[in-house]
């Protein structure tokens, strides 16, 4: 039911939406030129003996941005945390306390439906862009085990994105106004998820810390897996760490919700 509504909503403006999705790739065009210029000034950008930065050659860099775009499309949860804290503030959350619906479960289903609907329509523009950019994928399609890992990391990335944002939203039980906190969180997640650049570019000291934060699973990790930048012998361990983060976030989110509800005093009418 939730799914059908979401798809219906999307299909009403499908032309507009497809165009909007295509436009979202425009910044990648400037990134292509920027990185070409950067690689050009340190040595040979393409072909044999090409330079690489942080383990990425020029083509990898472009491919990275494209895959990170997909990963972000899975893991980004616009307005989730803000929505939860608003519902707490305005007392709307009562609905979930008196009806036999679980708030987190309901929100998760809504998001899944939204994402499915999004991809049902967005698959066309995505396919077009990837077809146009096929030359940047020098290594070709990844071997099956990497592809499975990639799909797994996308799904987990989605869940991590969801529970991370939901947990932040739960802070609304303790502080009524969380917009500034949210903003700081968004900044961090944007910068440290690898949306702007592959995380291996970071200076070593910073990279060592970022390596252990959950943000990288939102964009960097799936892309690195797809491009084969994660060595095969480390891959199972990395996936295990991701799963561990996911578990921690799920438990944390549930715990915060349970504690929050007890504190909750039902503001608003």
């Amino acid at each position, binding site marked *: 039911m939730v799914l059908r509504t979401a798809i219906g909503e999307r299909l009403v403006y499908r032309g*507009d939406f497809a165009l*909007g999705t295509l*436009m*979202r790739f*425009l*910044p990648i*065009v*400037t990134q292509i*030129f*920027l990185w*070409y*210029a*950067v690689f*050009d*000034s*340190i040595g040979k950008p393409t072909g044999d003996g090409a330079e690489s*930065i*942080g383990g990425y050659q020029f083509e990898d860099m472009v491919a990275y941005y494209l895959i990170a775009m997909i990963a972000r499309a899975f893991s980004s949860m616009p307005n989730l945390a803000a929505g939860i804290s608003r519902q707490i503030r305005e007392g709307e959350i009562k609905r979930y306390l008196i009806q036999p619906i679980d708030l987190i479960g309901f929100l998760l289903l809504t998001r899944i439906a939204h994402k499915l609907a999004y991809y049902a329509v967005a698959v066309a523009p995505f396919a077009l862009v990837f077809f146009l950019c096929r030359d940047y994928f020098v290594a070709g399609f990844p071997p099956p085990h990497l592809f499975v890992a990639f799909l797994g990391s996308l799904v987990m990335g989605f869940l991590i994105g969801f529970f991370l944002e939901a947990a932040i939203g739960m802070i609304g039980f303790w502080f009524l106004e969380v*917009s*500034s906190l949210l*903003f*700081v969180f968004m*900044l961090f997640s*944007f*910068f440290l998820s690898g949306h*702007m*650049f592959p995380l291996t*570019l*970071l*200076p070593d000291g910073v990279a060592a810390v970022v390596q252990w934060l959950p943000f990288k699973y939102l964009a960097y990790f799936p892309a690195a897996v797809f491009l084969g930048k994660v060595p095969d012998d480390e891959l199972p361990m990395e996936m295990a760490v991701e799963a561990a983060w996911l578990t921690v976030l799920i438990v944390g989110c549930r715990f915060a919700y349970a504690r929050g509800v007890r504190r909750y005093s039902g503001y608003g009418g």
Partner: protein
Amino acid sequence: MSQATRPSYIRVFLTFARNSLVRDMTFRTNFALQCVSSLGWTLMNVGFYLIVFQHTESIGEGTGWDRDRFFVFLATTWFINSLVQAFFMPNAEEFSELIRTGGLDFALLKPIDTQFLISFRRIDWSALANFFAGMVIAIVALVRLASRESDPYTPSLLASGLYFVFIACGVAIMYSLMICLSATSIWLGRNQTLYNFWFYITNFSRYPMEIYNRGWGQPLFGFFTFVVPVLVVVNIPARLLAKPLDPRSPWEIWLIAWGIVATVLSVVASRMIFKLALLSYRSASS
């Protein structure tokens, strides 16, 4: 309209500015948050370019855009964008709302130029936080540029003067583009993606134009220099300030000349498009 009822544009503008400031100061925490959030965005960008320059000496082989010069470029982008965001962005957003709700009727009735009225009504003072951020970036970059060991450079007085002139030109071009975009909302009914579209177009103006000048970038280079001149907006002033005035290759002199022509053309064109769009305005609701 007779001379006697001719409004004083400057006084009207100052009133708008004061009203906006009063409104911003009413919600002071919100104002501070907005400033902080735009500064955060600035910090992120600076971080990103610092990382890029960890791995390279300059952007593009032989273009001369090394770290200090590129940060002068970045500061220029920040100046122009913050001015546009402070003065024009809130108005352009409000304009499409005016059309949708039919509020434009009242703007048309007022005894003052409609384009003036709708483009200066609201000023977003918090966007000027980025102007100061740009100033900090510019000062740091210029000091480093002047005091470094290899190839130090201090811009001349003439270059600095020209810099301000071309910043103004850049803002004028961006303003014209925005008026054109928001005028289309008269035809299209609504234009919610205005801001996105704006972001994606101006995205091209953020880097030295040389980087587009290869392969399939050349059509883009041509399009964004001559048809929608967003490439000249930041490039001309930044290049004047960051690199010696002399020697220059002939194409750069032509570029500067084109910058002036492009400014005049885009202001005139946007004025015409705006008037044309107003003609096809039919009041909304009742």
